[in-house]
């Protein structure tokens, strides 16, 4: 079994308009795939389809060369998805938020691991402040701490750079490259220009089709 997410002739229609058609994807270990395109070109929709959240599409999805329907459990066990909404509860502290995610993902509850994750994203001193009192960027950082807290092979990140400051962006970029180099795989949408590297590949959406160029 190897990390491989494939899509064959994927098509999605929204309000009588094709977001994309005949989209073939082959995403393997060690890659950072950046989905780009103008606003409304279907980047988030594509990410939601690829992470198994939308069933309203045509085409076939494969995980590790098995059809997604059969491989869904194994797929979910390897997926870490960060959506537009950070999924951080305002009334809970960062530590409590992470505790839930840690338990959901089947990790052993470990306060030390949660502290370490928060330290990595630069939230030392904010562990016990309700997330609602943190800034938007800090809340995003709480969500990003999950990348460290729960090791998963496939990262699907929808605009992870939103509201993050410059140092944070650089650190996150480094983290994405590190993840790809250690055999993981990253699927990301962002308007932020990623530093070119050997692992980076682009998929352009918009205009009804997609060209899968470098």
């Amino acid at each position, binding site marked *: *079994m*190897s*990390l491989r997410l494939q899509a064959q002739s994927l098509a999605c229609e929204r309000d009588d308009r094709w977001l994309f058609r005949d989209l073939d994807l082959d995403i393997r*270990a060690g890659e950072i795939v950046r989905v780009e395109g103008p606003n409304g070109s279907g980047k988030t929709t594509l990410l939601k389809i690829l*992470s*198994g*959240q*939308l*069933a*309203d599409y045509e085409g076939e999805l494969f995980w*590790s060369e098995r059809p997604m329907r059969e491989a869904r*459990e*194994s797929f*979910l*066990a*390897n*997926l870490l*998805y960060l*959506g*537009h*909404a*950070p*999924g*951080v*509860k*305002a*009334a*809970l502290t960062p530590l*409590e938020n992470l*505790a*839930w*995610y*840690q*338990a*959901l*993902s*089947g*990790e*052993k*509850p470990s306060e030390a691991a949660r502290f370490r994750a928060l330290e990595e994203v630069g939230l030392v001193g904010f562990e016990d402040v*309700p997330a609602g009192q943190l800034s938007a960027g800090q809340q995003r950082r709480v969500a990003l701490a999950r990348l460290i807290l729960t*090791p*998963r*092979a496939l990262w699907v990140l929808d605009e992870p750079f939103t509201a993050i400051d410059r140092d944070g962006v650089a650190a996150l970029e480094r983290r994405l490259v590190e*993840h790809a180099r*250690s*055999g*993981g*795989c990253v699927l990301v949408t962002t308007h932020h220009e990623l530093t070119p590297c050997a692992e980076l590949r682009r998929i352009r959406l918009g205009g009804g089709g997609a060209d899968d160029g470098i």
Partner: protein
Amino acid sequence: MTASENSLNRAAAALREEPGDGLAVAVWATLKRDLLLMLRRRSEVLNPLVFFALVITLFPIGISPDPALLAAIAPGLLWVAALLAALLSLDSLFRADYDDGSLEQLLLTPQPLALLALAKVAVHWLLTGLPLALMAPVLGIMLSLPAGSYAVLAISLALGSASLSLIGAIGAALTVGLSRGGVLLSLLVLPLYIPVLIFGAGAVQAAILGDGVLAHLAILGALLALALSLAPLAIAASLRISING
């Protein structure tokens, strides 16, 4: 099996075959998290209780303070008010999670969604149905409910409100994606509430008349067993429909 897999296993991002046995941990964490959340937003917990108390307080003033008349309508009145109070609190069951994106995350866990949703419903019952059941006897005094029926009132409400929470959660899950789902939720759920209301109020009525209450309570228990076995699956399916729609 292959060299590439070995290298993957060594890597930080090792592939996992199947989810681990973390189901109990995940359910427990969801219970704890929801309890903590509700305890930090006490007004949401108090809302249905205050509504219940207000309605019951207003009835003797509005109708008549005559104990005989009030005692006759008390079982139905207490049950209807408790049912509406529980219904009132249902809309927010999944709403907050939907708004901040954690519902999306809940759907993407490898753990069975039905059981995680059941944990959320259990918290709803613990903080709504159970307090309503405990409060009802006190309000019963105000309606001069005949002595001897207080325990039955509390038991029937505790059993019945658990069914109400479970059935209502299906409606809440179906309407979570709608911006104003409150009215639709009531319309969807009320027909399914009727059997619970009939047997719940019937149990209290029987206790007043001195009939056997066990039959009514047994039917309430059966309804709860049915809801407990089927509702989690329906809630999970409804959540998927709402999110994928």
